[in-house]
């Protein structure tokens, strides 16, 4: 089969790989139709995630058709069109039975500090991802869901991670009516988090980024008030100023490990790998909210230490909330939002890249060329 393959930092290519096989009675093999490159894939692409092995196929956002099922699979059959959540989880452990699917304890030998994801290094279990013609899907009775007839393919693929994560991030903010919410990052997760904040009753939603074309999308898609941090000497002071020197009630970090805004922080983490991630956005979140506020962290960070301003968080009495999103838990309510016309997830898609051109897709997305916000990966016939 044709598959995207990691060759080392900044290098990927498409090559022939053996088709995956059933390795567990509850496995399915899915023929991928549509995938996506996630912002967090860029951390792998840049060599930031420990134990990212040459030969691995990335991709935790994908939909497709069931091609084969293991002997114990009851809920799917060959030919079903399925959306597959980014998390791999067993459905039966302490965490899964409590809805914490992203923290499953039965699927990742390599680490206890994180659950399992498709195509996201051996640190999250060593599973191949969906930027390929076929993918092994463990626990087929637990994760995949048949795509409802009314749901577009491009909307479905956004539900497998980005939309669910943004929506989850807004929930972790514990937003109450009239709250001022500041979202750092106008990438896909930030846009969805900003949009979702309104659903939870925010009175004001502010989005911060350095890319004007993304801030434009934050205004049109998420109805947000936007600021380009490069235009201000100190974005924290500006945020205090525009909130009557109070600070936001809730901040959402939708940037994560490769945050810009500090040359030293970015280079020491993204380039030199001396930190698990550049905590610029997280530190801005901590400093720009009011005392007693909640900071929701959706940005992905690596497992090594990062220079987070924990003293400020403590002294301000902040509540810090975070987790990898349990995707499927969000779906029933998000289906209702989409059907009610509250949002159209695929409105943020900017690029549709054939699998064979995925190396260019990674570079365009990574370097923010051609006003790229969300690139999809077209794998099979749709």
């Amino acid at each position: 089969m044709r598959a995207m393959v990691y060759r080392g930092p900044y290098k990927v290519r498409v090559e022939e790989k053996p088709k995956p096989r059933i390795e567990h009675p509850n496995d399915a093999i899915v023929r991928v139709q549509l995938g996506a490159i996630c912002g967090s894939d860029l951390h792998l692409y840049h060599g930031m995630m420990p134990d990212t092995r040459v030969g691995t196929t990335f991709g935790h956002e994908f939909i497709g058709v069931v091609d084969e099922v293991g002997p114990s699979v009851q809920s799917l059959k060959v030919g079903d069109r399925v959306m597959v959540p980014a998390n791999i989880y067993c459905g039966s452990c302490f965490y899964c039975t409590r809805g914490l699917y992203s923290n499953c304890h039965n699927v990742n030998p390599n680490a206890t500090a994180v659950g399992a994801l498709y195509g996201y290094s051996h640190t999250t279990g060593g599973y191949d991802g969906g930027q390929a013609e076929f993918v092994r899907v463990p626990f087929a009775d637990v994760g995949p869901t048949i795509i409802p007839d009314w749901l577009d393919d491009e909307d479905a693929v956004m539900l497998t991670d980005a939309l669910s994560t943004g929506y989850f991030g807004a929930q972790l903010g514990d937003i109450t009516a009239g709250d001022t919410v500041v979202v750092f990052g106008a990438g896909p997760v930030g846009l969805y988090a900003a949009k979702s904040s309104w659903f939870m009753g925010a009175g004001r939603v502010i989005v911060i980024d350095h890319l004007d074309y993304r801030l434009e999308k934050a205004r049109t898609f998420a109805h947000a008030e936007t600021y380009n941090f490069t235009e201000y000497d100190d974005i924290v002071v500006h945020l205090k100023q525009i909130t009557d020197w109070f600070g936001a009630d809730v901040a959402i970090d939708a940037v994560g490990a490769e945050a810009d805004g500090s040359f030293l922080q970015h280079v020491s983490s993204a380039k030199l790998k001396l930190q698990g991630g550049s905590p610029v956005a997280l530190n801005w979140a901590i400093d720009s909210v009011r005392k007693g506020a909640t900071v929701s962290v959706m940005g992905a960070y690596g497992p090594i230490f990062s220079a987070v301003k924990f003293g400020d968080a403590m002294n301000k009495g902040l509540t810090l909330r975070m987790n990898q999103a349990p995707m499927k838990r969000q779906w029933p309510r998000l289906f209702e939002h989409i059907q009610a016309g509250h949002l159209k997830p695929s409105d943020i898609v900017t690029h549709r890249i054939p699998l064979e051109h995925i190396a260019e897709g990674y570079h365009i997305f990574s370097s923010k060329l051609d006003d790229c916000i969300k690139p999809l990966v077209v794998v099979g016939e749709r």
Partner: protein
Amino acid sequence: MPYTANKPEPATREELRARIPGWGVDLDPADRPSVPRERFDPNGTGAHWDFPDRQPEGDQPRERSIEHGMLPPVFGTSAPLHGVSGAIRRFAYDRFSEGRAAHWLLLIAGDRVDAWGAHLRSLATLRPDNPITETGVVSELRHGLTARVGRKRADVNHQWIDPILVAGPWVLVGLGAAAGVRALRRRQR
């Protein structure tokens, strides 16, 4: 403003409802799917087992964190450990917990050894690594200037480092090899 007991008032609910599609539909925490954080529902996941069947382990013992009391029943098999990088990674897993920086730094060292080994091995194949096509850098020809010139981007101050990270080691190896050849020739004379 004076620091009083009140915080700034946003727009009214009516104004927000009129302006924002879906405003406030999840205002009630009961409508938020991840509230409360934990909802015990053992029958709601689709699992029809108390503990999953075990996946066969394969030819070599599957590496695992020493913070696990056992090998979890299901795991990925995408790129088994091999060679020098595999030895480094296995040492990281066998010796250090996830709480130790050495664990992660060794894994990153293993990644670099893995990548270099793969690059060198590729030179002996019909499809050697091609830094032009594999980095996708040709897209710079179409979009590179327009994406950066005249735009207030914070990342242009470090993007110049990327080509050095990608090509720098190759240049250094090339220079080293050239110096070695020159030294050998000098010695032969």
